[in-house]
């Protein structure tokens, strides 16, 4: 027996059982960064810090590369992986643009309806 599955909405991943399972270790690592001591350890030696968690090789590479699109695809949930962005500050709109594969300025204008800044 399984619960009914909602009809998919195009380009809109819902963070359900599959995503939660796929991304669990990645999100767990990201969640750990709410501790200042862990943020320091991450900043001091990122590779060693990631060794503490059972990330897949793809997840590990995505974190090291700050590949936001990849992190989401590999089960990362935005609310957790945002904590990685706190370490090298990056606006959430830039993370959004990266997921869509758009230039940040184009994303602000075309998706969010802001005025273009550079002519």
């Amino acid at each position, binding site marked *: 027996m399984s*619960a009914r599955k*909602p*009809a998919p*909405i*195009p*380009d*809109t*991943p*819902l*963070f*359900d*059982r599959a995503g*939660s399972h796929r991304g*669990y270790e990645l*999100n*767990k690592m990201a*969640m750990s*960064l*709410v*501790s*200042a001591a862990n*943020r320091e350890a991450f900043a001091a030696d990122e590779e060693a810090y990631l060794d503490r968690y059972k990330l897949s090789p793809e997840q590990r590479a995505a974190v090291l590369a700050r590949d936001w699109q990849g992190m*989401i695809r590999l089960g990362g*949930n*935005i*609310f*957790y992986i*945002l*904590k990685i962005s*706190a370490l090298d500050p990056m*606006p*959430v*709109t830039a*993370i*959004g*643009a990266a*997921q*869509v*594969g758009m230039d940040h300025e184009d*994303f602000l204008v075309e*998706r*969010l*309806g*802001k005025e273009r800044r550079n002519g």
Partner: protein
Amino acid sequence: MAELIGGCGTSHVPSIGIALDRGLQDTPDWKPFFDGYIPAKEWIAEQKPDIAVVIFNDHGNAFFLDRVPTLALGVAEDYQIIDEGWGKRDIPPFKGAADFSWHLADAMVEGHFDPLICREIELDHGIQVPMELFFGRPEAWPVKIVPIFVNTVQYPIPTPQRMWELGQLLRRAIESWPGDERIVVFGTGGLTHQLQGARAGFMNRDADKAWLAEIGPNPEKYRDWTREQFVETFGSEGAELIMWLVMRGAMDADVRTVMSHYYAPASMTGAGMVVLENEVHATEEAA
């Protein structure tokens, strides 16, 4: 019995808090947004509530994915500010209305809602930002709070119908409370935003404005929607709007929309606010 003085809906976008921390309220990007809340601050200062019941979602701060309560209720005397990864924000901790919270816990369980009951828990921007928007930055908050946490992060999230029924139960709990406190209910979250996937940055200004116009006079329309309709219309994270239905379900069938405000985008989100009063309450005030 306690008195329900009104229902407020508001966005709780984290960048609003950051803008306040950095003193950006008067910059061109933010001034129209914050100016729209001036009447809301005036309204709540006049109304002088004693207790704010705030329905919101934790954003992966107090709860990780190891345990995800569909509903949780704070019953603490004090709530500290949580570190979301950027350090703790410098705003005052919250005082809890613990007596009313325990009364609500009884009412919820007797009414077949079964929340996780939280004696010690820290609070994130989901509750901080609405409080700052309505009360500014006081030395100490002028109201005690009752936080109701709703899971909107991991599916399955609760249904809109269930949120409405929780609001109806909340109303009965307010009316069966022997105290004489003045209570305001906040539904928070939304409006349109999608932070994940190739549809990230989805904006639906028309739907946002319709929501603000209709949540007072025509809420049944949204109560009867599916969760998927919320996601499709307001974006994957915009489905947080189901939490406004708790607030709306707590109010009378007939309400007056005292004010509303819309600004988009705040960061990646359509930001909106509404203040509702029960028609009876509004009439008494006028008399």
